């Protein structure tokens, strides 16, 4: 019986936490768009500041939304109401409970963010 070929290790699989594309990898550092596209008048610093403020506000809004009743407007003229629980790290899915749909009330559900057009809630 022939000796099986030796292997140093197995291929690494997905890490299950995020979608990958590690920003600390050498390839990312070298090839990714070096900074956010600044507006033509060149005030990059100010634009970065605005962007971080907006981003922080958005993330805080997600925290504020936890436990509140939210109305979601989705594609295909669908509107649903649910109690928001959490978002995943890439803001791709929203965990909701007590989702009121035309088919009935779903105790626990995941809403896909790309399917959502807008949402509103009271602070």
């Amino acid at each position, binding site marked *: *019986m*022939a*000796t*099986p*070929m*030796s*292997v*140093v*290790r*197995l*291929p*690494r*699989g*997905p*890490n299950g936490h995020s*979608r*990958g*594309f*590690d*920003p600390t990898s*050498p*390839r*990312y550092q*070298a*090839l*990714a*768009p070096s900074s956010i596209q600044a507006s033509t008048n060149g005030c990059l610093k100010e634009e970065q500041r605005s962007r971080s403020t907006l981003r922080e506000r958005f993330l805080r809004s997600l925290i504020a939304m936890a436990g509140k009743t939210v109305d979601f407007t989705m594609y295909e003229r669908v509107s649903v109401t649910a109690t928001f629980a959490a978002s995943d790290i*890439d803001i*791709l899915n929203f965990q909701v409970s007590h989702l009121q749909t035309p088919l009935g009330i779903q105790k626990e559900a995941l809403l*896909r963010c*790309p399917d959502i057009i807008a949402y509103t809630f009271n602070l």
Partner: protein
Amino acid sequence: MRQTPLTCSGHTRPVVDLAFSGITPYGYFLISACKDGKPMMRQGDTGDWIGTFLGHKGAVWGATLNKEANRAATAAADFSAKVWDAVTGDEMITLAHKHIVKTVDFTQDSNNLLTGGQDKVLRIYDLNKPESEPLEISGHSSGIKKALWCNGDRQIISAADDKTVRYGILLKNSSLSISIFVVLKDVFVAGGDDFKLYKFDYNTGEDLESYKGHFGPVHCVRFSPDGELYASGSEDGTLRLWQTTVGKTYGLWKCVLPEELGSENSDSIYGTPPEVKA
């Protein structure tokens, strides 16, 4: 030496298409299309997962990388083809179609994308002007399974469900660049519904070797750009990497001489990889 395939897990449904990029300063890369809707990009020589392209809402039937591996394109059952930044994983362009899209292919300069699918029409998009209408090529009488640029992007070869293959010459567009293809000419590999991989002699068509390993029909097989390995995608949801020349030290494979197997510093080297639960 016996072939030890490297299994890349991560997909949860059958792997239906895969493609390699060209050789870049960071090595070469692999993309796999899966019915779970989440195409994945991996390092080509090791199979290490790099990232997953998230956004399609249906099974992904076709996936490809451009030569420089900075762009990816995918074709899906959600009636769209998408172009992605293959460095950040971000979605760049969505090209809406009227039916399931099955195949995508970049030109060598990455300026144009060829798509084909169940609506039986081939389309050529200008990726610099994605909103403009694509060039449409009709002719197939059944859904298109695969379409590729060939001969320096001057010709298109397409295969359809009715088992016909069409070979068309693109007459108009003079802005497409000319390039040279390098083909591994001694050996070709094919995967079968019997779960095995077969290696044939390109010149004589002789069946050279066959390898077992997959737990389902093999849907797609491609050689790496340097010809040192080939990757297969299967109904069992895995990709496997196979050495072209078994016994060579390459990627994760390491040639260990019989004397070395007994010594203390072979702790990190093991003969048969331990079973990994899916």
